[in-house]
């Protein structure tokens, strides 16, 4: 992925993924617009996590094509992963390393990465930088996970249900952090969030997507909370 390139940051064309004989993604066509926040809704088992896993290159698609800045994944080398950040159900941090050690470890993995102090301040974890990740609350761990995902300033940030398990103040804090990422001046981070939290998702979204049965069944800008709820209910009763 290269700066200055126009067009979608990420595109999936007729993307399918099967686990054994079970299809999870079916002919998914998706384009993520540069610098926009895309929010993906869908009930459990719709394929959201799998889609994010494939987009993050953690899972190999069964068929279809993935393009990053218009270049097929098959033509890119491992350095392309430097432009992707993922926040998953699990934090990917090491429980016995401190907050600072975790960030410094991931910064070293990515080479030219952000200063740990800056990230600690941004995630409001400076006071806990010497605490092991094991000792953190769920909310702090999630902030650390996001800081870890942003340590290398990715162009594409993928978040899989980041609000799950958070109390209201922690979720609000996380929402503010994501808004800061979205609105950061001079930085066009493209975001894709999979979430069940309709209010927060719609508040963050420039574009709303709905997934059902491994397919994208709704894709629009400016959808309201009520509209998303209606669509989710409709999908649930089908």
């Amino acid at each position, binding site marked *: 992925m290269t700066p200055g390139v126009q067009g979608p940051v990420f595109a999936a064309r007729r993307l399918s993924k099967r686990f054994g004989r079970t299809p999870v993604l079916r002919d998914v066509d998706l384009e993520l617009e540069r610098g926009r926040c895309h929010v993906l809704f869908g009930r459990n088992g719709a394929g959201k996590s799998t889609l994010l896993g494939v987009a993050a*290159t953690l899972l*190999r698609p069964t068929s279809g094509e993935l393009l990053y800045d218009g270049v097929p994944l098959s033509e890119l080398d491992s350095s392309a992963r430097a432009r992707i950040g993922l926040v998953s159900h699990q*934090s990917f*941090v*090491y429980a*016995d*390393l401190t907050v600072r050690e975790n960030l410094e470890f991931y910064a070293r993995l990515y*080479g030219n990465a952000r200063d740990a102090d800056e990230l600690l301040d941004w995630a409001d974890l400076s006071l806990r930088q010497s605490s092991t*990740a094991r000792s953190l609350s769920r909310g702090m761990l999630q902030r650390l996970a996001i800081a870890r995902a942003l340590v290398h300033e990715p162009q594409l940030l993928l978040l899989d249900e980041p609000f799950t398990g958070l109390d209201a103040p922690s979720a609000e804090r996380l929402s503010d952090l994501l808004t800061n990422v979205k609105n950061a001046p001079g930085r066009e981070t493209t975001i894709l969030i999979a979430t069940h939290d309709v209010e927060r998702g719609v508040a963050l979204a420039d574009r709303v997507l709905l997934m059902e049965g491994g397919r994208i069944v709704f894709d629009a800008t400016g959808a309201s909370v009520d509209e998303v709820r209606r669509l989710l209910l409709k999908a649930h009763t089908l």
Partner: protein
Amino acid sequence: MKDVRKELRTKEIVSSMFVFAVLVLLVFNFSLALDETRALELGPGILWTAFIFAGTLGLNRSFAAERENQSLSGLMLAPTDRSAIYFGKLLSNLAFTLLMEAFVLPLFVVFFNLDLWEILPGTDLAWFGVVLLLGTLGYTALGTILAAVAANTTMRDVLLPMLLFSFAIPVVIAASEATRLLFDVDPLSGPRTWIVLLGGCSLSYLAVSWMVFEYVLEE
């Protein structure tokens, strides 16, 4: 470095490997009551049994940190060749296993009343070092990739030993035979053939493991 730092903090892997190896030696020592001649004959096999069992314990724990918060996925996201993860894990597993062996070997000598300087004069001691290194390398090279395979299964505690003991037979036999011939004061043949076989097996395991590791991670 991350694994070393964690180990310095928790002392989980090396200490448990060491204690387990010592227990294996003690069990053999009490149950067999070997005289000096029999100790030279059976000692190499007992030593490698202790190393293999303790090594398996360490290998089983080697991916525990990555399992806890799915940190392995975090490593897979890094913009490097995924085989680098294999080599990083292999180096830490090798270091921990060699450290355990360095502590266990003197105890083995004491328990079985052996004089290593007398048994391994001149270059034999250096060759023993080579056998230890190659045997440990082969075992940990194979064990690291099998530990990655077993890490995400519910039966990892049983699966790893089952797979590892089966596939590592050539390395274990070659290492213990080479050691037995080095310990033997009047061997019928030298250990060269077994050392060459050991080196070949270890390097083969290393090469194959490196090549398939990325596919193992993704599946």
